[in-house]
């Protein structure tokens, strides 16, 4: 090799290094997760007697959480081994009713375990979304029986107040969620949800198709669902469903004593389309 050619060859080194170092241009996919705020869910009956009491639910508020397996790097979580929990407000209120009952409820101790009765928990199939940006949990189940709320006698110490209450019979509920899936993109981090639900209360069973969006936003008209700052991603296709009633935010009836019409029919903002529901 002639000495004069050596510099030229060495000059090629930078270019070669650049070629070797060619690497990914794609951003990482996110870990599977549910959203952490409440969801507003619409229940559509798919099976069961439409007149049965358990088929009357039009929707609910769902609380969800994602848990991670222990044993990750340096004592942290394994963020790619997530578990989801779903807790319908309807079931939660059954427990609250017992917790706040003025007298002790036999069979209901108020310990931590009781607090978790309404949670349906299930593992995600994978730590990362599939090709359609969906994260799946095949099954989540919660089953519990809220014991009977005993009858309350009048308190002789308070002559002005009648505390008398009749006993409330026990309630057995079961939620079997199957094919639960969450949209997981940077734009919708688990905030759109869809699943099949087999709901049983006492001896009555109904099956629903459930679609939900987070956060849960109270509405009267469709415009309430697209208000800036209400927390719902403004790109989502949402609408107000007045048929769903949140017992914690009951509708306002007209006051017959005033000439104005005070009626307010509260509903919840729900997804207008199957997920992914975008404008």
């Amino acid at each position: 090799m002639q000495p004069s050619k050596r510099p030229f060859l060495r000059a090629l080194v930078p270019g070669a290094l650049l070629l070797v170092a060619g690497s990914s241009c794609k951003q990482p996919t996110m870990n599977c997760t549910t959203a952490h705020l409440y969801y507003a869910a619409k229940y559509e009956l798919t099976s069961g007697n439409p007149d049965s009491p358990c088929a009357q639910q039009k929707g609910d508020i769902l609380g969800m959480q994602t848990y991670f397996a222990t044993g990750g790097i340096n004592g942290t979580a394994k963020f790619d081994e997530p578990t989801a929990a779903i807790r319908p407000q309807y079931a939660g209120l059954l427990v609250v009713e017992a917790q706040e009952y003025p007298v002790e409820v036999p069979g209901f101790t108020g310990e931590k375990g009781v607090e978790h009765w309404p949670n349906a928990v299930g593992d995600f199939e994978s730590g990362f979304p599939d090709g359609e940006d969906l994260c799946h949990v095949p099954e989540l189940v919660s089953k519990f029986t809220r014991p009977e709320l005993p009858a309350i006698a009048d308190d002789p110490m308070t002559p002005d107040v009648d505390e008398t209450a009749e006993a409330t019979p026990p309630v057995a509920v079961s939620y079997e969620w199957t094919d639960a899936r969450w949209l997981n993109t940077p734009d919708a981090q688990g905030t759109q949800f869809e699943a099949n639900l087999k709901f049983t209360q006492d001896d009555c069973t109904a099956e629903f198709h459930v679609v939900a969006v987070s956060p849960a936003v109270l509405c009267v008209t469709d415009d309430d669902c697209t208000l800036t700052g209400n927390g719902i991603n403004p790109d989502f296709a949402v609408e107000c469903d007045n048929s769903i009633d949140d017992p914690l935010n009951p509708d306002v009836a007209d006051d017959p004593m005033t000439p104005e019409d005070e009626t307010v029919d509260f509903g919840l903002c729900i997804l207008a389309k199957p997920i992914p529901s975008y404008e």
Partner: protein
Amino acid sequence: MRRSAWITILGAVAAQAAVVSTAQAGPSDAVLVGVVRDASTGEGIEGALVIVTGEKIQGERTMTTNVSGLYRIPNLPPGTYDVTVFAKDYGAGNKRTGLQLRAGVTIRVDVSLVRSGAREVIEVSVPAPTVDVGSSATGLSVDREMAQRVPIAIPTGKGAANRSFEAIAEATPGARNDTYGTSIAGTTSPENKYYVDGLSVNDPGFGLNGTGLSMEFLEEVRIEAGGYMPEHGRSTGGVINAVTKSGSNQFHGNVWAYYTPGQLEGRREIARREGDAIVTERNLNWIGDAGFDLGGRLIKDKLWFYGGVSIARTVYDLTSSWNRVALDPGGNALIDPETKFTVTERIAGTTQRFKAQGTTVQAIGKLTYSPNKRNTLELLAIYAPSLSGGNGTFGMNAQTGQPEVLNLVGDYGALARKYRDNSTDLQFKWNWRDDEGKWNFDTILGWHHQLNQRNAVDGSRVGDTTGLAGTPSVVYRQTNNFYGADGSLLEPGMPGYREVHSLTDLTPMPSGAPAGACDPMMYGYTDPTTMDAQTRSVICPIRQWTSGGPGLLYDRRLDRLQAREIVTRLARGAGHHVIKFGVDFEYTQYNSNRGYSGNQIYRESTNGTNFADFRMYSFLSGPDDANVIRNLNWNVMSTTIGGFIQDSWSIMDKVTLNAGLRYDAQHLFSGDRSLAMALPNQFSPRVGLIWDPTYSGKAKLFVNYARFYQSVPLNLADRAGTGEPGLQSFHNAVGPGACNDPLAPGANEPGGACTTDANRIPIGGPADPDQRWALASAGKTPIDPRLKPQSSDEIVAGGEYEIITDTRLGVQYTHRWLHRAIEDMSRDEAATYFIGNPGYGVAKDFPKAKRVYDAATLFIEKRFAKHWMITGSYTLSWLRGNLAGLFRPETGQLDPNTTSDFDLISLLENRSGYLPGDTRHSFKIFAAGEIVLGNGQFLRLGGAFRARSGGPTNFLASHVLYGFDESFILPRGTGERLPWNFSIDPTIGYTKILRKDLRLTISMDVFNVANFQQILAIDERYTFDEVNPIKGGTSADLANATTTGGTPITVNPNFGNPTLYQQPRQFRFGVRLSF
């Protein structure tokens, strides 16, 4: 006679010497190029021998001209050189002496020879040209001469004790100090690129300068503010390059000591605040540094060495005292009618004195080896350990250079920490050049390492289960409440009546104080705004107090490995070309081990009924199944590969076209080794055109366009890219067995009163799977798939003219604007976050990130010659937008690319306006001269003068989710402007030449000689209340504004009051022995 005629010819030739292009070889070395011509025909002379000699190079560098007479001698360290040219039939030789080469410039010296048979070498002294007719870069070069003669670095502030090179960078036109360093061209200091001899020393985690090398070890600091060529990249700020001294064949050295005593400090204006029972005064005790350096030869012309050591120390006095509410004879609290502040009185015998101190040692060693003409090898090593805090003292914040605490409202062990901040740098450079001067190769391998530890003052460290590191930090912050739910005034003892803590409830009174001085007693208090007559009992009120352990502790280890290969090729074709291309690889790593002492910080609720797990690394593995992480340890990394090609094309020696392209690709990786963020395809075009209208190197007009991309510091991969999982629960503090004192023995142990589930207050609603825990933060923050790297565009234009020898006058205009920013955002009010580009992609409905900087600068520069120098500039500038940069100046939040600026849609209103760095007018003059007293004695005089108009201020309120100062009630910058501030820093010195090459200099610098105490900052917190921004509001709208709850706003009594004044007058005394 004959000889003088020769000199005439050569004098004309000398005028052609001109600085050409910034297409330099190494980042700090200069290059000499030129053409040897026949004076009569103008033809290039082939085969002429060009010899360069100088103090800074071993032996001599030689080069023979090519067929067109061109020569090029690269890799010349900054210094003074002689050039001799020999050509057959052109006499015995022609020598240019005294060519001053500054770092990074390419100087062009053309030589015209006359055919003759002369037998002697002709010698001409050539002042190097000052107008860089080949470059469109803006900025400043500060050489050793200027740094020693002018007091540029103010003794307080970041890197000031040892006069670090980044403190010097503030002298650049348009630059200003910010919280973490020097802001250049309207950017923030973490956006700068910091180099020492071409070794990148940026803190890999946060982008700050990681090696604050003292100016004493430097030959020159070159600050490129803008318009720089593609070989510089990965920065949207300035490029600050420190060039270290080198050895030479002669032995040279210095011994120095500087001392700034606190006793001579001017009177300090104290910012007055609505009273707390603790008042702390901070005063400088002393700042000083001392050191030595030595350079010389090990083997003449082959192997040189340079080395030095310096030690710098900063000591502040922190004096705290107890104060009680002053009462009138009627037992009513006194209110200052002017300020509406409660009058307080100092309690005798309660004064406690502390020190905040830090010590930094720097050691540098450098070997330069030139085995033959083709090769130069250089090895550089720097070790700079730094210690502060502990043993009854407070530490210094290494990121800001200030004491770590302002007000001593807490136990010593909770407020003070012990810091260790080390940096280590190692670099190997190899330069190879061919004999013809066509090819030049530079290979650079470097390693920058940092260790940053924050330990408890008892020496216990992150993860320890005993000592202070095993003790939780507890923040007490109970508030006053004198009103019932219906608005009625409450009396002591009534339900709901509540007062802030009395200091004696939280800490024992100093022993010298009169007993009972702080005992509660009933007194009347008339609220100065509502005029309500309240009854109070706490006479020594304290609004916030921290007890227990020190809170966050960490052990961070950061590394930056670099490999660079740069090839320079000299070519000819329609003029002369200096073509340069190279590849640049960086691997950075950030091992961050951090944890809260005793696992967590407990924070008292404002009503005093519970303690929250305010900060605790933890995660849930099942419903209410919390797992506490004692110390979170992530190891994150990043790779950056880049390359560039550029040509500096001198067209007919009149116009220079600099054009090039840079490519970079950065990939950040999470703590689990998976990709955290990909930032490929950073194509940065740069084009500049320079024209010398005089055709003689005395003037230039230039224009330049450039795009700059920002390298993302690893803090993003660590926090957002890997996750900082955290939970909160609330511990009941009322009743038997409650968690009423998290510091009680056993309370924070497993099963203790503050860890048992029985005391955790149920907080979940009916639909919450977790009833006793709330998620504060979880795992990784998702990335917008369409994310683009952060970048800025810039156009600079200007002109310069050499008005007299060594002196140039210039004018520049800079227009720089943010193109895209990377930030974290939430579209659903903090429920979920993602990282993207505001205004693009997923974040398309967020406003675009804006930062527009416009500046016109007029400057004059005369380098030190004929006993005097001056550098002065006036800059008229505007800085507007909604993003300051990589940190938030309003709160000091340093989370590059994940600040809270764009977090929530509800925070975005009113954010556009004049940014904190907006300074309309800025004057800077640095001058120095010496008077020859005879007998080897000189009197040195000089000084610095700065004047700056005040910055904008704001009306800030609290945000429901984000807390104080996050809501702009009125558009950004609507507040009254801060006043102008001036500082005059003269210096006087005396130099005596003791004997040949040995001189002694003593000096006195006086900073802020007039002791101006102008306001530098005011309290911009209009209210503690939650108030939503009033879109486009004016100050007239404030009167009717309400909180988010619809109630009238309670104005912060301190709003608009000064919070920071200018540094008082300080004297720095120096002595230096140099040989």
